[in-house]
């Protein structure tokens, strides 16, 4: 820790931290447009200039030194800043009246703040038509080329989908160089040369919409929101992403639907883009609510009667519920002895239980911050960008900002992940390998392992022959042509032999000691050792593949051992929004004979959001909390009104419930804190510290060190016909598919290599066969992977029939003749 002085006040900070970051964390205002927290500085706007020890520096990239004295504003600097804002206004269309950014436009704000009231400079404008980029519109004439979109796409999302392209503007008056203030001219000169464009025609874009969120002006906007509402008409309702387990902070922006219909409608989802990135589903999948819900008293009474007569034996549900609802279900279980059936949460629960036995901690110790601050990250068992995009953002951020290195294990290649950094090694492995990955990690990174394990690992090496290239000096005779002047003075070429010493690379066979596991996985240990050079903070990300694997119990034990015996911070991704919450609150069972009440799932009698016997509220219509992948209990609020019954009404009718769902928040169980719903905060502060709900404490217990058998239950399957269970980007469940911007029909998504080996083409109609079950669907090309994956977001098809619990399945594919 060092101290620096900003405007006469002393602040503590880390040595080498950026001045702007320190100022922001401490609430000192330094104007800046192009800089985004957590990204690398672009130096496009130069507004953040300050005087540090008498020298003018850009605070977004100037690093703090002990005793530094910073002054954020002098008359000179103010003049420059005003001139910069003035140049941004040259030819900026005066359409604030209709611009969607009006009211939250940073150009507007800073022009007003710097007091720009005249324009002295001019340049002839060029024609720059509007461009549509799928869910996003780009209006180049409004763009101020701050490059925030390019930066966020590169440093956070990792897609690298945007770049700067030539602007082709008119040449400007050379005399401006003398008349304009220096910094302003530099900014303007750069501005006049570039615009924003898409890399390879937008193929690398996932339409997450983060570029539109960070745009300080109205250049990048969400197409569906265009001209629908002014920013100031919208009420922001703080909530949490209901679709995936990051449960990131979102704001539902609501206002009445129209003049005739005064019911609230969600117009868009906004975010705190400095600290919480949103994935595509969070940003665009907001209208999945139960619109025409009504109170069907007869069905409610039927359910209550069935409970009272002990006819309901099972409650089948999924993890797209709040903690409060999970608590209600476990109350029903206690009272009526029903079985709580939730396959995916049960697997996660079992994984966690086994994990905690061997790790000695009841929860994993990783979170977003540990990943972001790591310098060596391993991801295994997760199709990361599809399963948990927000973790892929943090992984990419660590690679870009911390110069971290990473290993990405997956049977399906992901070219975007592999393009994150040169220091990311993509390891494509056979789908029957999973314990080998964790064994390799334990073998390589484990310290003070139990003796039986250490002995096992010591024996799991083998000497293999390897060819290496060695430099060797050799003398060779070479024919050299020489130009010699003959007697007449003419140049004649003469050939001459000469002996030259040359360094030749020769192969030499040596014996090296290689781990059997890394050999099985096809790892290049030398490369990995290079990546590991000087790395100190390690993170391990475990995904759904491992939780659903036949080896799950074994994998959980090994993950526990990794957390205990290595420096890795482990994060086990909850597969659905609130899998972790459900796993911590409910005791889950297997299905029993008898009637089943389905909550958003099939059953003899169902309650749910869409097409069920009794209406239930969607997650944007109820208040409650989720436990996100950071083990944080985060609140969510209803954005829309709801006219039907909710789960709590069943409990109330059975004389079990509290008045409101939120009354359960402080009574969730021993693992949870005793905090009332209304006391839960939901925000980030200026330094990026999360004030969202509260974090669950990890309880440490004694761990088991017993020997266990390490035998893989995976069978060797033919890789060529293996398909994988995963959703395309932006889809997580039937709820995301209900959203108007995301709605689509399930297809078999396949990479080019997969299509080639099966001689199929994009958009072909195929039938998938497995054990006599057939499914007909179309193929869609996903050029970012090499395998094929079948989605489960579409509730019109039953995908589980094609997988026995695990995420891989061998199927036969046939092209259907039309």
């Amino acid at each position, binding site marked *: 820790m060092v101290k620096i002085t900003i405007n006469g006040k002393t602040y503590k900070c880390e040595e080498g931290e950026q001045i702007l970051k320190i100022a922001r964390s401490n609430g000192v205002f330094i104007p800046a447009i192009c800089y985004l927290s957590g990204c690398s500085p672009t130096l496009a706007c130069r507004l953040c200039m300050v005087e540090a020890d008498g020298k003018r520096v850009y605070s977004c990239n100037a690093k703090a030194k002990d005793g530094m004295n910073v002054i954020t504003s002098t008359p000179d600097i103010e003049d420059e800043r005003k001139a910069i804002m003035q140049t941004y206004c*040259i*030819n900026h269309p005066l359409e*604030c*009246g*209709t611009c969607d950014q*009006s009211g939250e436009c940073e150009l507007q704000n800073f022009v007003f703040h710097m007091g720009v009231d*005249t*324009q*002295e*400079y*001019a*340049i*002839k*404008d060029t024609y720059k038509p*509007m461009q549509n980029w799928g869910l996003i519109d780009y209006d180049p004439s409004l763009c101020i080329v701050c490059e925030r979109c390019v930066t966020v796409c590169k440093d956070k999302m990792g897609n690298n989908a945007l770049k700067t392209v030539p602007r082709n503007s008119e040449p400007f008056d050379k005399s401006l160089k003398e008349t304009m203030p220096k910094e302003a001219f530099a900014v303007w000169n750069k501005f006049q040369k570039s615009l924003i464009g898409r890399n390879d025609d937008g193929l690398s874009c996932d339409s997450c919409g983060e570029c539109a969120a960070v745009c300080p002006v109205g250049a990048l906007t969400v197409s569906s929101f*265009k*001209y*629908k*509402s*002014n920013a*100031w*008409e919208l009420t922001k309702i703080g909530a949490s992403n209901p679709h995936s387990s990051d449960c990131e902070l979102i704001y539902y922006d609501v206002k*009445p639907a*129209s*003049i005739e219909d005064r019911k609230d409608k969600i117009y868009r989802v906004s975010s705190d883009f400095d600290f919480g990135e949103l994935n595509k589903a969070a940003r665009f999948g907001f209208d999945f609510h139960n619109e025409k819900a009504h109170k069907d008293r007869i069905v409610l009474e039927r359910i209550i009667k069935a409970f009272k007569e002990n006819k309901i034996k099972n409650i089948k549900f999924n993890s797209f519920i709040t903690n409060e609802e999970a608590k209600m279900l476990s109350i029903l279980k206690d009272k009526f002895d029903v079985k709580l059936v939730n396959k995916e949460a049960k697997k996660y629960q079992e994984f966690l239980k086994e994990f905690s036995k061997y790790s000695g901690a009841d929860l994993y110790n990783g979170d977003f911050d540990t990943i972001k601050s790591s310098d060596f990250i391993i991801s295994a068992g997760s199709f990361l960008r599809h399963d948990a995009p927000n973790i892929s953002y943090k992984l990419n951020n660590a690679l870009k900002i911390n110069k971290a290195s990473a290993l990405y294990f997956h049977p399906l290649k992901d070219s975007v992940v592999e393009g994150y950094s040169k220091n990311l090694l993509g390891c494509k492995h056979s789908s029957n390998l999973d314990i080998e990955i964790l064994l390799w990690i334990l073998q390589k990174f484990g310290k003070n392992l139990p003796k039986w394990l250490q002995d096992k690992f010591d024996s799991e090496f083998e000497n293999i022959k390897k060819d290496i290239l060695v430099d060797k000096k050799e003398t060779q005779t070479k024919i050299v042509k020489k130009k010699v002047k003959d007697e007449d003075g003419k140049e004649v070429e003469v050939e001459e032999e000469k002996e030259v010493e040359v360094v030749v690379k020769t192969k030499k066979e040596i014996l090296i000691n290689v781990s059997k596991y890394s050999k099985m996985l096809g790892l290049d240990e030398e490369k990995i050792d290079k990546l590991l050079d000087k790395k100190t903070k390690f993170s391990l990300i475990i995904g759904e593949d491992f939780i659903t694997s036949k080896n799950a119990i074994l994998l959980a034990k090994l993950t526990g051992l990794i957390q205990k015996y290595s420096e890795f911070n482990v994060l086990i991704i909850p597969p659905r929004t609130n899998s972790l919450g459900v796993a911590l609150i409910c005791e889950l069972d297997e299905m029993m004979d008898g009637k089943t009440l389905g909550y958003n799932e099939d059953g003899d009698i169902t309650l749910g959001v869409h097409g069920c016997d009794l209406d239930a509220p969607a997650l944007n219509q109820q208040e409650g909390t989720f436990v996100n992948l950071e083990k944080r209990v985060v609140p969510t609020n209803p954005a829309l009104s709801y006219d039907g019954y909710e789960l709590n009404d069943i409990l109330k009718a059975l004389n079990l419930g509290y008045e409101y769902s939120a009354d359960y928040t402080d009574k969730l169980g021993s693992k949870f804190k005793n905090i009332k719903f209304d006391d839960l905060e939901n925000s980030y502060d200026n330094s990026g510290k999360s004030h969202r709900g509260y974090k669950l404490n990890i309880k440490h217990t004694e761990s088991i060190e017993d020997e266990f058998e390490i035998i893989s239950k995976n069978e060797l399957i033919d890789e060529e016909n293996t398909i994988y269970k995963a959703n395309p980007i932006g889809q997580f469940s039937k709820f995301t598919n209900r959203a108007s911007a995301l709605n689509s029909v399930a297809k078999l998504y396949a990479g080019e290599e997969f299509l080639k080996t099966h001689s199929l083409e994009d958009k072909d109609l195929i039938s998938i066969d497995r054990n006599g079950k057939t499914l007909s669907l179309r193929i869609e090309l996903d050029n970012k992977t090499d395998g094929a994956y079948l989605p489960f977001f579409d509730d019109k098809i039953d995908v589980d029939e094609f997988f026995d619990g695990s995420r891989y399945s061998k199927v036969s594919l046939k092209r259907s003749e039309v």
Partner: protein
Amino acid sequence: MKTNIDKFRRFLKRTFSVELFVGLGVVLREMLKKNSNHTMFYPMEKVNIDARYRGVHKLLRLAESGNERCIGCGLCEKICVSNCIAMDTKLGEDGRKKVINYSINLGRCVYCGLCADVCPELAIVHGGDYEFASEQRAYYGFKEDFLTNIKDLKEQKEFEGYGALPNDADFKVKLTPTTYIKKDQEND
């Protein structure tokens, strides 16, 4: 200070002076005179309202093209002190912001004139219509009620009341450098 005696004297003077009878005479004369203009036969006759009067709103069109002037910026909605204006907007087929509907709760409006004042396009203005008695407290007018009928475009008068530009506005506005560039190009 006036004493009570002063006040009594003033009372006598006012009561018995000739002025009272002069007034009575005027009334008598006007009563008997034909075509007197002092009494208006409302509602057959209506008073001529000044341009500055703030009556029921109008939405104007552009005189040349007949296009709606309203750009849907929402400033009137924002500034409205009695919160009685609402509008629905969308992206038009021509890529411009279109106002689908516009409503004013005339029963709630206090006719303060801020909407007309703030309107950057002089689209929402006050008209001379002052009759807004209705059966209910809430009385809504919609876009079709306020907008100049395209047939009556020729009769649409430029607004001169509250919020209108002064006659010499063109001379008062400072030209931007871009204007000079355009002028240079035209000269070339």
